[in-house]
């Protein structure tokens, strides 16, 4: 699977100027990444115009990893069930490149936080979003994490 082609192409300076924060979303379902992206972009129009969020989406976790730029994203939303590498492993690898980026994990199944804390002690497991999620709640959560 290739990366979502709706990634906007702007120059580097523009990237850093016109947006408040950037969010990386990794989920193997293209409809879901598209929905989240459009949802966040839609909220840009409605909320405080100084807090515009730019969204980058990937359906292939390896592509997300190889394209990753440090000090670029404020938050990443990673689906737990990814093909090949699981969401936590991807997060660990990204944290090696950029220690500051925050993370929220998305899942459509049950989560055992205690078990996960033992396996991945270095990852912050404070933010879990259960799919399917209402867009209002989703946007609020994303903006809260970025603040």
């Amino acid at each position: 699977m290739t990366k979502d082609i709706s990634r906007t192409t702007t120059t580097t300076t523009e990237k850093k100027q016109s947006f408040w924060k950037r969010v990386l979303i990794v989920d193997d379902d293209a409809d879901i990444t598209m929905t989240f992206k459009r949802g966040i972009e839609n909220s840009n129009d409605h909320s405080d115009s100084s807090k515009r969020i730019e969204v980058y989406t990937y359906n292939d976790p390896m592509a997300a990893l190889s394209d990753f730029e440090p000090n670029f994203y404020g938050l990443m939303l990673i689906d737990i069930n990814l093909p090949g590498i699981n969401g936590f492993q991807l997060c660990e690898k990204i944290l090696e490149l950029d220690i500051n980026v925050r993370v929220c994990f998305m899942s459509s199944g049950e989560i055992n936080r205690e078990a996960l804390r033992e396996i991945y002690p270095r990852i912050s497991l404070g933010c879990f979003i259960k799919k399917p999620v209402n867009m209002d709640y989703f946007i609020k959560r994303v903006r809260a994490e970025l603040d």
Partner: protein
Amino acid sequence: MTNNTDKQQNKCALCGKLIKEQQKDNSAIDAEIIDGTSYTFDKNECMLMFKRLRSVYGAEFENSLVPQEQFVSDPFWNRAIPTVQEIKDIEVEKEAVGREEETVIAKQDTIKLIQDPAEIQRTAVDIGTSAKDEVLIIFSTANAFHRQERLGGIQALSEAVEKRGINARILTPKDKSIENTVHKLMQRGKHTKIEIRFIEPDLQSQVTTLIVDRKSSLVVELKDDTKESIYEAIGLGIYSNRKATVLSYVSIFESFWKQAELHQQLGRLYEQLKVHDQMQKEFINVAAHELRTPIQPIIGLAEILRSKKDTIVRSTDIYDEYLSIIIRNARRLKELTENILDITRIESQSMNLNTQKADIDNLILGAIQESTENQSSIINHNVKLMYNPSLGENDRSNILVSVDKGRIIQVITNLISNAFSFTKKGVISITKEKTLEDVTVKIKDTGSGIDPQILPRLFTKFTTRSERGTGLGLYICKQIVEAHGGKIWGKNNDDQGATFGFSLPINRE
């Protein structure tokens, strides 16, 4: 203790009691010559006891270390009972003194109490080795088994089984070492007829039971299981060759034997159930994920559309795009729901088949029609679907099958749909073949073929994860076809694409 020189004052050679010379008392016995020496005895019993002791200890008995008096006062000696061997030699003595436990009826119909552990072991070996047909043993504890093992008893039995062809069955509580022994015994050869089953720890008894040829039994008390030597571990033993007793023990053995088998079966079923349970859990987890996934775009995009409704006129592209994604995911959800419900029905065996006679051609055509309806929104004009109903010039007959029409159409539709999913251009051709027994329907495509990695798991749940597929279709097809007594398969073509086929038994009526 010889009284050669002391004829005036005769003492009994055994108990030392004074015997008055020329006593006319019936109990006095004249001198008895044993091994060339003359002895006098107080009673007949004394003479017999002296003879026995002589036969066991030989001439040594003359210089016995045990004081004479002990023979008089020791109740054990007063009640000593001969071994089975001697039963055959000795006439029954009705004048037995103080032998309340001994019930003597006839040589062939006996219950005997044996107190001497050595005698018990000898008796066990005697009757065990005299077996002609069958030896049954229930060991009281695992240690009892090991004690007999160390004495070579198990080995001897195993050899007897192999050489003389007797049947041997052993019930024993188990430990690791016994399990290994049993395993080795089982591997020894085809002639081994020794069968060993295990008793659960809470069903252990306090006696070890030996039954030979359903004619004699030996039941031995366990006195102290911590002892290594059998002579210290066992208490009393009871030998019997009375029918009622022996057959009762046989009945006890058989019920334990049966119970051990049932217990084993139960264990196996439990393991199978655990595996099945685990598979169910996994299925539910995957199903939950698959169901929740399409719901997200439906909810999300619908909510976005609602929030954008003022601007919607200006962006009909977005409107169309969002709506088609919503509809696509809603349909996927519908298909998933149906598939998962189908699977739960199949798994709980409540898939009811409405069997009717049907012409296979009608089923195929029905499936083709349904496929073209389904595919209408995504028609690929580069792919042709072809079906040639004729089998050959000579065969005009209809092929009838007894099937649930809806279900078979479901199968064919699914296979056609898969073919479309994986074929970008070319031909999907449907053919049928007939034998005396069954009819085979094949769907051949010129697409990308089956991924070799998936090939072994082709008909299992959630295997195919194609963009539009649910991963359950082929699994359900397999269940349906096999429920009709048919077979389903899929393989890659030599040139390009794949062929899927299934067979159904022909209606013979």
